[in-house]
């Protein structure tokens, strides 16, 4: 307004009538804000005063001293390699509970994402049956309370399993690595030859390649023949022995634990080097494509660097890894690792439940990419796979990520239902046992809430950052 000189000059003679200050929006705003603030502060003070008074009159101790006191109770399972004994402090129980929460949330997010994407894509399938199956899954699972699903897995599926002595066993072959390596190398060479002669040569000659299915059958036959020949020549089979390695019972799933030996560190370094190298290859390939238009198979090269390179090093450094197999001694299985029924049921219920929501998000995200985009991509001459990879998925992800974030948050918060079965997450261990042993409800509930708030904040910050990175770059 001030920019308009005419108006200013017109207003000079009659100054604008100023409202009385109680009608002035600015004053009113201040007044109401002060009022509300005073109200909130008084209410908070009232609560704090009551709490302090009650705690004092009932002789409840306060403060955070309890965190350094000895806990004296045991915790069923710990993750991330944390060791905990009864002699540790209450503070340590907090850490253990927190880590267990993170552990189950992490795996839950991982599984739910995979399952959710698969079901979301199934829902969009042109195959009527597949699409309807996905729909039935979504509509059933998401309309049943999560807690009920946890109970179902825990009490109805895992509880009735046989005891340790009647475990359901699954044997796994112990592979003879020398045999495997020779077979793989020779077969790879043979299959390459097959492909070279059957596909490349014939195509170059008369534009008619060998059909894919024929190639696949020929390859399988080749591998079988070569495998048997190697057995004959070397005198030992591919399978050194069958070993009972997986045991499912009402104490959970016992499985062999890989134990690295001396020299395994080199393989670890190889993975790190592979990742770094793959990163540089990607940058180089992009630069080259920008400059010359030539493409480079980045995906295959990265795969080779990240998996192939460490694998080769692992083999040549003498396979420095062995497995610790579970064995039934006394009451339970010792050795190996175990997934407890509490963990399994919580993880499965969380993943299945969240996947039903993610599936809907994925469907909506892919549907949100306008059909014109696909048509335009086709018009440019792209084929089905690049259209999906370069046109549809990047745009769909932009729509998918924000709601996906809130699903991840929900999953993390829902992992607190562990308290209903006996998975020792932070709510069960810290807001449960520790609270009952110390009686310090205020401090403990506040700490537990702070943990979830922080986790929420961290996940949403990360997702916002990712979202920004994926966002449409406009001119």
């Amino acid at each position, binding site marked *: 307004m001030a920019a308009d000189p005419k108006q200013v000059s017109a207003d000079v003679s009659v100054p604008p009538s100023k409202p009385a200050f109680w009608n002035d929006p600015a004053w009113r705003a201040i007044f109401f804000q002060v009022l509300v603030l005073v109200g909130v502060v008084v209410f908070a003070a009232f609560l704090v005063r009551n709490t302090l008074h009650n705690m004092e009159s009932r002789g409840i101790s306060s403060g955070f001293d309890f965190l350094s006191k000895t806990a004296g109770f045991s915790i069923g399972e710990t993750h991330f390699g944390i060791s905990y004994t009864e002699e540790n402090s209450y503070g340590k129980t907090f850490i253990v509970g927190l880590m267990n929460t993170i552990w189950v949330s992490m795996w839950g997010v991982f599984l739910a994402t995979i399952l959710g994407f698969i079901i979301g894509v199934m829902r969009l399938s042109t195959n009527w*049956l597949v699409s309807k199956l996905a729909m039935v899954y979504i509509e059933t699972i998401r309309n049943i309370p999560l*807690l009920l699903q946890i109970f179902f897995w825990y009490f109805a599926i895992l509880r009735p399993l046989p005891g340790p002595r009647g475990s359901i066993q699954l044997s796994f072959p112990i592979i003879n690595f020398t045999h495997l390596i020779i077979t793989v190398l020779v077969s790879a060479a043979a299959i390459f030859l097959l492909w070279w002669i059957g596909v490349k040569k014939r195509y170059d000659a008369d534009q008619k390649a060998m059909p894919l299915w024929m190639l696949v059958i020929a390859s399988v036959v080749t591998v079988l023949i070569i495998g048997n020949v190697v057995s004959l020549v070397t005198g030992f089979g591919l399978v050194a022995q069958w070993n009972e390695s997986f045991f499912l019972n009402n104490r959970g799933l016992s499985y062999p634990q890989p134990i690295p030996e001396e020299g395994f560190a080199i393989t670890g370094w190889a993975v790190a080097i592979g990742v770094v190298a793959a990163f540089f290859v990607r940058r180089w390939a992009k630069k080259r494509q920008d400059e010359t238009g030539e493409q480079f198979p980045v995906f295959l090269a990265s795969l080779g660097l990240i998996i192939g390179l460490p694998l080769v090093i692992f083999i040549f450094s003498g396979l420095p890894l062995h497995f610790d197999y579970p064995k039934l001694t006394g009451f339970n299985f010792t050795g190996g690792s175990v997934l407890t029924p509490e963990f399994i049921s919580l993880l499965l219920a969380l993943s299945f439940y969240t996947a039903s929501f993610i599936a809907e998000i994925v469907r909506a995200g892919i549907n949100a990419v306008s059909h014109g985009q696909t048509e335009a991509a086709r018009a440019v001459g792209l084929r089905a796979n690049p259209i999906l990879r370069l046109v549809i998925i990047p745009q769909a992800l932009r729509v998918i990520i924000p709601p996906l974030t809130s699903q991840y948050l929900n999953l993390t918060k829902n992992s607190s239902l562990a308290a209903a079965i006996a998975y020792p997450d932070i709510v069960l261990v810290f807001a449960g046992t520790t609270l009952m042993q110390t009686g310090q409800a205020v401090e403990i509930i506040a700490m537990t809430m702070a943990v979830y*708030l922080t986790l929420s904040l961290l996940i949403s910050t990360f997702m916002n950052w990712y979202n920004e990175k994926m966002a449409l770059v406009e001119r």
Partner: protein
Amino acid sequence: MADAAQNHIVGEHPDLLPPKTEVGVWGWMYHNLFSSPLNNFLTFFGLFLIWVTIPPMIDWLFIDADWVGETRDDCGREGACWIYIGVWFKQLMYGRYPDEDLWRINSMYIIGAIGLIWLVWPNLKYKGWIGVFMLFLFPVACYFMFSGGSFGLERIETPLWGGLFLTLVIAVVGIVASLPIGIVLALGRQSKNMPVIRAICVGFIELWRGVPLITVLFMASVMFPLFLPEGMNFDKLIRALVGVMLFSAAYMAEVVRGGLQAIPKGQYEAADSLGLSYWKSMALIVLPQALKIVIPGIVNTFIGLFKDTTLVLIIGLFDFLGMAQAVATNPDWLGFAVEGYVFVAFGFWVFCFGMSRYSQYLEEKLHTGHKR
């Protein structure tokens, strides 16, 4: 086909039937089930899945199930024991509410159902009055009917409340009470010229949205007694309800905020230019439009809350699922937990699925007038 095309005389079109693979059942099957090798595989895999899951399920649920009888011994067959549900039906529905007072719950159910159907049914008159009745009078009437203690009704302590009845009480109270709080919070969060109020509202909303309901319920059960002045204490159910209310109010606030943001700026400005005060412009212009848009969102929040009410069993209230858990440990009826879960799951599914369909219907209906 190719021959036919070559043989006809130029300019003349033979009246060929469309190919069999394009029309009718076969055409549909070809296009929707067997259009490619991958689809063939998927179809057969899907059929296999159905084959291994559905027939045993039907056997267990219906064919092999026991339907008539009164004791555990009547359940001798392979399938489900629905007698178990029959025996404990009253507990699953009403908890330990006295038998002779069940009419109090049932009559309110009937009144509530009539009111709801009236509100939901399209093109009925007096919806406004019915709405006011359902929102204000009905809950108060329910309170006096359910807990008694006045009007000659016997007082019934809340520990006796349970089952589906308790689930409905918690969910409905949670949603009805959280709506006004949520509206106030949303308005506070949207107020541009009052940063303090906005900060308080944002803090409140994010605090409750960032923590799981179970910690809120723990707080309600072990911390609320400390917050209150000495000597004053609330019933456990009331404490849980307060927790649920605070929690769902935060979610409701975000739903309402979505509606407020969807109202075009012109509406706010038009209200201002008419000289309406803030509250008048909100109450007469903005909120009626915003709330209408967010009805599907409110229904969705309600579905979420309805499912979440099961968490109260962790603090020792016997809701629908809690009751199913409790009767499953009865020494005379051990081993029928699955039947209980299936029954409860079916109950929740019917409610939630019905509501989600209703919200989708509303969304479509409301969209027509507001899409710009």
